């Protein structure tokens, strides 16, 4: 037990070393490790994750707002989008390959389908949860439909929408590790190619991906607090005390 724990600590130290220092590949013929390589792998990882999440939000948030505002057809849309999450991303990639080949577009498409459902579901639910009295009074003040969405429903739904985006972001950052199986070399490469990078390289990449997911989560959390309407923040604080 103790020995196992000691070994785990050693492995961890080796993995951290891999992140900071370059060394010969155990398979020979090339150098691996070091911040330069980690960055080379991380940049496509970030681009792919960012593009997928951005596109997913651009589709899911307006759609969710509209469905939530109408109050109809939501469950159908949510269930349809959930199919995207039920099919494994690798299967989606293989399926899209027949039409668009492998590469950035294919992977983005697969990851968009993975990222859509949480954002859509949360946006729809967020809008539906808005106090009906607030919507009615907005209407009473003479606001038009689009104005109600923009000034009442969207701000009040924001905390839930962000919750959806954060879930999707973590999913996407973690799943982008499969990209080297479909043409884009990301942080998944050391995880897949243990013979080239060694065990410490595999663990190092996993650690970096985990840190990236945590950082994304924290960044989005900060953004969420920044855009939450003041009224909601006050309410929450009062509710807590």
């Amino acid at each position, binding site marked *: 037990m103790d020995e196992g724990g000691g070994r785990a600590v050693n492995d961890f130290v080796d993995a951290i070393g891999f992140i900071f220092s370059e060394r010969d590949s155990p398979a020979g013929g*090339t150098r691996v490790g070091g911040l330069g390589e980690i960055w080379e792998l991380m940049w496509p990882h970030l681009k792919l994750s960012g593009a997928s999440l951005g596109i997913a939000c651009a589709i899911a948030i307006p759609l969710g707002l509209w469905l939530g505002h109408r109050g109809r057809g939501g469950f159908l849309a949510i269930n349809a989008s959930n199919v995207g999450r039920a099919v494994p991303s690798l299967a989606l990639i293989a399926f899209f390959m027949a039409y668009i080949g*492998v590469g950035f577009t294919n992977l983005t498409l697969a990851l968009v389908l993975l990222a859509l459902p949480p954002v859509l579901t949360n946006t729809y639910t967020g809008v539906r949860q808005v106090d009906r009295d607030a919507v009615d009074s907005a209407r009473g003040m003479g606001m038009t439909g689009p104005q109600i969405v923009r000034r009442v429903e969207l701000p009040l739904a924001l905390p839930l929408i962000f919750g959806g985006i954060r879930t999707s972001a973590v999913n996407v950052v973690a799943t982008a590790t499969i990209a080297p199986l479909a043409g884009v070399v990301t942080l998944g490469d050391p995880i897949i*190619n243990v013979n080239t990078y060694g065990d410490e390289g595999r663990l190092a990449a996993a650690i970096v991906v985990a840190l990236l997911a945590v950082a994304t989560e924290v960044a989005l959390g900060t953004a969420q607090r920044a855009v939450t309407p003041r009224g909601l923040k006050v309410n929450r604080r009062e509710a807590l005390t």
Partner: protein
Amino acid sequence: MRKHRWLMLLALLIAALAVAGCGDDDDDDGGASSSGGSGEQKAGIQKNDKNSSTKVTIGSKNFTEQKVLGEIYAQALTAAGYDVSKQLNLGDEKTALKALEGGDISAYPEYTGTALLSFFGYTADKLPTDPDEAYDLAKQEFAKKKLTAFEHTPYTNSNEVAVTQETADKYSLKNISDLKPVAGKLTLYGTPECRQRLDCLLGLQKVYGLKFKKFVPVAIDLRHEVLSKGQADVSIVFTTDPQIYEEKFVLLEDDKQMFPPFNSTLVARDDVVQKAGPDFAKAIGMVDKGLTDDVMQELNARVDLDKQSPEDVAGQYLKETGLVG
């Protein structure tokens, strides 16, 4: 495709004859009775009831070819009278070796190249390119671990540079060297591992001086589809991939002998080999003789393309080669 499958069946038949032939050679006890040349059954694996007290567990890694091989050895040893059990899904080579050294399994088939690269710390540029030399080296290394590596199979499962017939005709490609003037116009696809391997992209760059337009990593099971769909101009495949015949891909000759050999060898624990006696080695040897590139490809095809079980396919091999009656 139909035609090709028939050719492969023919190859199996030839393998059967080869096995029958060498069976006669080894058969020094029953020479008189089978001299008429009708000794087809005599050439098969002989059951020895004394072996029933020896327990043997055959293992394999977790992909088609390994499972078929594992089944073939298991069924052959059963036919020789041993008490055989199976562990045919052991993950990667490191898991399989651990199981072998720990005694969970008695034997499993490993590729000479994989053993040298993955177990014994050789880098791809240091591997012998001659199959026998690679086998001898692996055998010596295994011996240090108290493991016996049996004579390697005729077939190898190495990396191969594959193009479509169309591409081969267009640029008149026969050898890998022929790619040199046109590589800049061609995209190369291969497993993610390929990018940094000396016996793959790195080697093609260093040994052959090829600079491809682009290298695109893909999952192992997509390497054939990208080629047949025209997305890849060149793809790295394995020698015994059944899709090669199905899609009529052209494999380019490795004229600078860069790809190390990956022949299969059954690796067994020394203590098991000693206890099992001569019938063990004899049965393994008879099985291995018929396993040529074409035969292994056909057997893989029956599993991967025709969706038969490895167990059935192994049975067919032993029957069609006359090893088991």
